[in-house]
């Protein structure tokens, strides 16, 4: 992987991007410590295609990528609003 296609800026060098972790549902407000600890510390970390937050640093733009952790191939990238049309959930 050398070039990543930013949904806002098009194909850019991978060094312009920063990894932001797996996309996973946030615990509900008031959720117990176990649920919060699970959200903060535990990762799926499977050798297959995963949904991840990525950040285009020069333009401060967060988006979502589907990437194969076994082959390091980027399957697709898309704006976070595709997954969260209502906004809010991050």
């Amino acid at each position: 992987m050398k070039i990543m296609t930013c949904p806002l800026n098009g194909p850019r060098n991978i060094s312009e991007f920063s990894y932001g972790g797996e996309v996973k549902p946030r615990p509900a407000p008031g959720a117990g410590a176990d649920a919060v600890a699970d959200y903060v510390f535990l990762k799926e970390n499977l050798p297959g295609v995963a949904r991840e937050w990525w950040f285009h640093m020069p333009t401060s733009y967060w988006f979502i990528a589907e990437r194969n952790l076994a082959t390091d191939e980027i399957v697709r990238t898309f704006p976070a609003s595709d997954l969260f049309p209502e906004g809010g959930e991050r």
Partner: protein
Amino acid sequence: MGGAVDPYPIYSTRSTLDFKEGLMAHMLELFPFLAEVRMMRQWAGMADMTPDFAPIMGKTHLDNLYIDAGWGTWGFKATPVCGKRMAECVATDSQPEILAAFHHGRFSRFEQVGEAGAASVGS
């Protein structure tokens, strides 16, 4: 001539181009005459990392199951005392005081080991 953790998780052992580029850039700053040297070989392996970069040691909630894992960034120099105290843990079936902070339950209590000065973490 150097090593670090890749900037995002991967199972491929080719390592990432951005890691190699970064390492080469640092080398050329120190030794510009290496500019014409080719990269001959690289090696990458799995690092068993924990959320606070410190190992998990000691008892679990299951009888006769003990954990000694997550040494991905801590040096092998700690191995002798780890072996001694894990042996004590198994022999007495109790968590030795020196291993208390390393119990796997620390994450659900938000009591991470605050010692991220280990190899690869600072770079």
